[in-house]
């Protein structure tokens, strides 16, 4: 009888140990899943928000409600660099020409985050202060193509030669789970503003 009781106790302890291990492991895995899925969602939502703003702005490159104010839209692209761009547009659709700039900040601007690669993408309208678009951006790469789809060296010496633009964006989470950062990437293939070359 005594032996049976002892076996019961040992068996129960063994099963309890397994259960505790399973719970502990499950807990760790679920925490990881919860954290990374949450990070993924945040990064993806930030990317979509950023991309929607960028797409809307870039599609209006060279646009002005009062078309006489940008008579020659091929001159609307003012500066075209690898990680910066400046162009004329009508941001608020009020018939006045605005100068809109996008540029990537320095890594040091985001020293507060744990991600060593992330930067701020700034959006600047006319002479107003630059507006940070988001955090967690690790890539903002703009490529330019001429009328024959040939790539143009950056910074572009003659912006009026640009007919199409390609944009690559990559966002990462500001903090890793363990050492892994969540990320989301977007590429605009050959964005062509109709105003830029419409005339």
């Amino acid at each position: 009888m005594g032996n049976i009781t002892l076996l019961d106790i040992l068996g129960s302890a063994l099963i309890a140990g397994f259960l505790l291990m399973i719970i502990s492991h499950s807990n760790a895995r679920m925490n990881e899943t919860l954290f990374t899925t949450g990070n993924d969602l945040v990064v993806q939502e930030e990317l979509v928000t950023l991309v929607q703003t960028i797409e809307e702005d870039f599609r209006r490159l060279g646009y002005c409600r009062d078309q006489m104010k940008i008579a020659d839209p091929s001159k609307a692209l003012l500066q075209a660099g690898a990680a910066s761009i400046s162009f004329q547009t009508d941001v608020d659709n009020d018939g006045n020409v605005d100068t809109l700039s996008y540029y990537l900040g320095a890594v040091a601007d985001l020293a507060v985050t744990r991600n060593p690669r992330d930067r701020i993408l700034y959006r600047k309208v006319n002479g107003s202060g630059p507006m940070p678009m988001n955090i967690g951006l690790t890539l903002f790469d703009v490529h330019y193509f001429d009328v024959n789809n040939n790539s143009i060296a950056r910074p572009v010496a003659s912006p009026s030669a640009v007919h199409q633009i390609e944009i690559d964006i990559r966002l990462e989470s500001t903090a890793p789970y363990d050492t892994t950062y969540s990320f989301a990437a977007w590429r605009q293939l050959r964005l062509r503003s109709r105003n830029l070359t419409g005339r």
Partner: protein
Amino acid sequence: MGKYSIMLVFALVVMLGVILPNVHSLGNRSVENFLNYSMQIQSHNLAVSGANAAATQIYLTPEWREGYSEVSVNGGRYNVSVTDYDTNKIRILSVGGLEDSRDTVLVILQGTSFSRYAYYSKVEGAITWITGDTVWGPFHTQDQMKISGTPVFKGKASAKNGTNPDPSLAIFEGGFVKGVSIDLPLNLDPTEQGAIDGGRVFATGDLWLNFVNNNVEWKTAVGDPPTVTALSDFTANGTIMLNAGNIHVQGVLDGRVTLLAKQGGVSSAGNIYIDDDIRYTHDPRTGASSNILGLIAENDVIITDNAANNSSVTIQAAIFCHKGGLTAQNHNSRPVAGKINLLGGLVQYQRRPVGIFSSVGGIPTITSGFLKNYRYDDRFYIDAPPFYPWTGGYQVVTWME
């Protein structure tokens, strides 16, 4: 011990029950987020497709205004309305939709004036575009472009009969299209009607015009003293027509004017003579300017052989020669006269000579007449002098997405 095991199992179930829905919720939101973006893009693409389809239809049939209703494409749909807008403009409103997502594209088309061309010719003749030639602004010829070397065309270029050779080494920075036909109008009736309706019409004989800002000094006989009239009194809508004679023009213009010289059955008539510089009061290259001039000759626009024009001549205007071209009087016997500084555009039936060159030590050197310095006036992309001839087609002037 058994009850503790059950409690542990229960704890595990509770934990899973709380966390797993959260994980699933995050996953669902992620997918929803992507789907919303995807649907928005699809709606946008549908709206763009509708606008493109309508613009193409107007290109093929300029009077088309039917639009499109509930056109199904790729699981979505688009609706397009096409309406006349302002003066000689068309408004295309395209709405694309996929499920609950909507997006709109608004396009304004404008009748294309011949003034939009930096260079247009019906007949190229023996002209060859060579290395060193540069054309700023839109280019079109109804002929074949003869190319030697690497001339540069900065704006959109088109040639009905392509290039020779084909392909050529010409640099078309704004793109090149062959097979496009944009013929000169059969007549100049719209401009003539503009002058009759609200402008100024002279019947026969020559007409001398000297613009002095917003006044005009004018006379109809070379020896007469000029009459000074406010430009707005001289022509209400800016159009001035001479029915059978030649117009002589010079001065500084502050206004919007089109001159039309018709032949009227007189073989020596239908020309516009530029007796001296003709320029704008407000130079569009140095600030906003509404000054605009159109010179329309049924035959030629001619740079007069006189002392004033022997040290370069400045012409700020859109030039249109229905049966002729821009030329210099006595181009092969007049002295070397500097440059033609043209700011505007040149539409001509056929290119005419403005000077004579000879080769000196292998270098082309001018021996009489003018060198050419032609620059495009960017405003002519969408602006035009009053009642200037138009091509019959439309061009996109704004595209709002």
